C-alpha cells in the first residue's frame, strides 16, 4: 500500500472531526471530535514513520496519546463542574466565563 492512501484517509478523518466540532453543540461530542482529529494525526504519523523506515513517528504517537489522556481528564472534569453549575453542557448556552 502506498503512503498516499493512508494520508488521504487521515485527511478525511481529520475533516470529519473538524465538521463535528463545527456543527455539534454538545460539549462531550465536541471532545470526541477532538479525539478523532488527534487520531487522524496519529495515523499520518505512523504511516510516514513506516514510509521513512524509522520508529520516531511511533514515539510521537505515544506522546500524543499521553497528551490526549491528560486533556480528556481535565476536559471532562471541567464539563462535570460546568454541568453542576448550569445543568447544561450545550456550548451555545455556556457562553460566559463567570461561574
Amino acid at each position: 500500500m502506498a503512503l498516499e492512501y493512508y494520508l488521504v484517509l487521515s485527511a478525511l478523518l481529520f475533516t470529519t472531526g473538524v465538521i463535528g466540532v463545527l456543527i455539534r453543540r454538545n460539549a462531550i461530542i465536541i471532545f470526541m471530535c477532538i479525539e478523532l482529529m488527534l487520531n487522524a494525526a496519529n495515523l499520518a504519523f505512523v504511516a510516514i514513520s513506516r514510509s521513512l523506515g524509522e520508529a520516531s513517528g511511533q514515539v510521537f504517537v505515544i506522546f500524543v496519546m499521553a497528551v490526549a489522556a491528560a486533556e480528556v481528564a481535565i476536559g471532562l472534569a471541567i464539563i462535570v463542574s460546568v454541568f453542576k453549575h448550569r445543568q447544561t453542557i450545550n456550548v451555545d448556552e455556556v457562553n460566559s466565563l463567570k461561574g
Partner: protein
Amino acid sequence: MNPEQILFILFGAVSLIGAIAVISFRHPIYSALSLIVTFFAQAGLFILLGAHFVAAVQVIVYAGAIMVLFLFVIMLLNLGTLSAKGAISGKLKGFAVILGILLAIEGVYIAVKAPNDPADASAETAIESVSTTTYNIGELLFNEYLLPFEVTSLILLAALIGVIVLVKRESQEES
C-alpha cells in the same frame, strides 16, 4: 487486489463510517460507541502499517481508558434526556459542512501531491520493507526522546493535580 489492500479498504471504511456516525448520532452514548469502533479500526490500520505496539496502546489507552471515562461521564450526567433536542446547531450547519468539504479537498490534494516530490522518490519502495518493533520504539524513547518522555510525565502530573483541584473546589462550595 492483495489481502493488504482489502484489509486497508475494510478498516478504512469502518473507521470513516464510525467517524461520520460519531458526528451524526444525536444521543452521546451512540456517538461514544461509534468512536470505540473507529478506534478499533484504526488499531487495525496500525497493525497493517507494522506498528504493533502502537496498535496495542491504541486499544488499551483509547478504546479502554479514555472511552470508559467518556461513557462514565455521559452516564453520570445522564445526558440522554436533555441533549436530544437542539443537538446540532441549525443556523450555520450548511456553511460549516461546505467549509469542511473544502478542507477535505485541500487535505486530499496535499496528501496525494506531497509524496510525489523528487526527494521522496524512494518512499513507495520503503513502505513495504521496513518493520519497526517495540524494541526500536523503546530504544528511541529512552535514549533520543528521554527528555520529552519525562516532560510527558510532568504533563500527566499537572493533569492529575488539575482534576483534583477542580473537583475539590466543587465539594468545598457544597459543604
